[in-house]
């Protein structure tokens, strides 16, 4: 019974490697993009603030799968030929970016305004206030939700298989179609995802606890 899983494990692990690659790129670029936008969302430009607010509102309100399909069909419609990985990758980066921006924005806003007033009265400039006062405190608050955000992004890479990008879940479906061993294969795949995701969950929880103690 378990044999099916063992013989197909190398193929699944190759899929897991693609999943990991996709996840690392999406999480890294998405988090960087979202952090930048989150900082700008607390800035002085009103137009920029409004634009970012709309971006966050729209993206958070629609399913990531729909954004992936949108990316998949929008690139060719604009006359750009890209493969499925680029289409779903860009779509996911934009999606993760919106969630990250909201986390970073609210973390910065949660720092007591008295801190900014104090920094200003010391004669600190805006950039210095952001770098020395706001970001260090906001980072501590933002880390647990950002890690959970990354965890969600890892799980969401599996949806790329629906749009046609080959990765772990796609590989699993191929094997199940061939062997009909749905339980062994899908439970095995769940185990692989769990091994990737659970450490992230533990990390977020550990950091949250540490924050609670230090307050």
């Amino acid at each position, binding site marked *: 019974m378990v044999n099916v899983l063992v013989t197909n494990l190398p193929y699944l692990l190759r899929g897991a490697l693609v999943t990991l690659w996709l996840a690392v790129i999406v999480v890294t670029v998405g988090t960087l993009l979202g952090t930048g936008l989150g900082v700008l969302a607390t800035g002085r430009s009103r137009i920029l603030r409004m634009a970012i607010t709309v971006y966050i509102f729209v993206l958070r309100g629609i399913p990531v799968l729909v954004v992936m*399909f949108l990316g998949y*069909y929008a690139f060719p419609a604009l006359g750009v030929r890209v493969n499925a990985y680029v289409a779903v990758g860009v779509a996911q980066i934009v999606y993760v970016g919106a969630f990250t921006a909201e986390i970073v924005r609210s973390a910065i806003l949660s720092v007591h305004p008295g801190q900014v007033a104090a920094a200003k009265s010391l004669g600190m400039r805006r950039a210095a206030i952001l770098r020395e006062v706001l970001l260090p405190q906001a980072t501590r608050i933002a880390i647990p939700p950002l890690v959970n955000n990354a965890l969600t992004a890892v799980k969401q890479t599996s949806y790329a298989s629906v749009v046609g990008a080959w990765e772990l879940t796609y590989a699993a479906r191929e094997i199940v179609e061939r062997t009909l061993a749905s339980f062994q294969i899908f439970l095995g795949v769940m185990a692989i995802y*769990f091994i990737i995701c659970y450490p992230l969950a533990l990390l977020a929880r550990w950091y949250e606890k540490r924050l609670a103690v230090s307050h």
Partner: protein
Amino acid sequence: MTDYLAQTAVLLGSLWPKLVDGFLITVAIAAAAAPLALVFGLVLLAPRMDARAFISGPTVAFIELMRNTPLLVQIYLIYFGLPVLGLYPSEFACGVAGIALQHGAFLVETYRGAIESVGARQWDAARAIGMGRFTAFRTVIMPQALIKILGPLGNQLIVLAKDTSLVSAIGVMELTMTGKLAIERSAASAEVFVTIALFYLAMTTAIGGAMRLIEYRVAGRS
């Protein structure tokens, strides 16, 4: 440009009835899965908070497995796994079950967090004035926990509404699947998914608004 707009309008007009049908199926999936998830979370609550490790241990293991693996794979496991056991539920039922199971696992942690945040002092005080365990939970802990639950509950329901799109992967003709087929069978393209995105945005915004209204009412009453 005007040509393009006119063509797109005609195209979307012809697809409109199908999209509305798909949207109604999407709403039906969410409407079926949400109460099931809320109840399943409640069912898990007692074994999750049980002091005996042989009860809480397996419950925690199940919850963590559901929370840390993709919903899509869980839906596949149900849809392709149950026939092996001789059960042939519909695609719709498999999708609803998958969504309810994962969201129930997320909700039980939300419930637990809210109950624990009310604090042991409230519990001790209620017991000290002679309340039974059930009365203390019903009249002291639960009303306070309820207020704290509403915010995260609303967020979870929005995620649930968006997750209904995954049911398209097993062939249910909901909104996302309708869009995919429309593009494969007609001259339509990305415009269809822009329209679909707006449908989802309307649904999640409505849920968010409703939850905020309820939160406002409940908070105002206490």
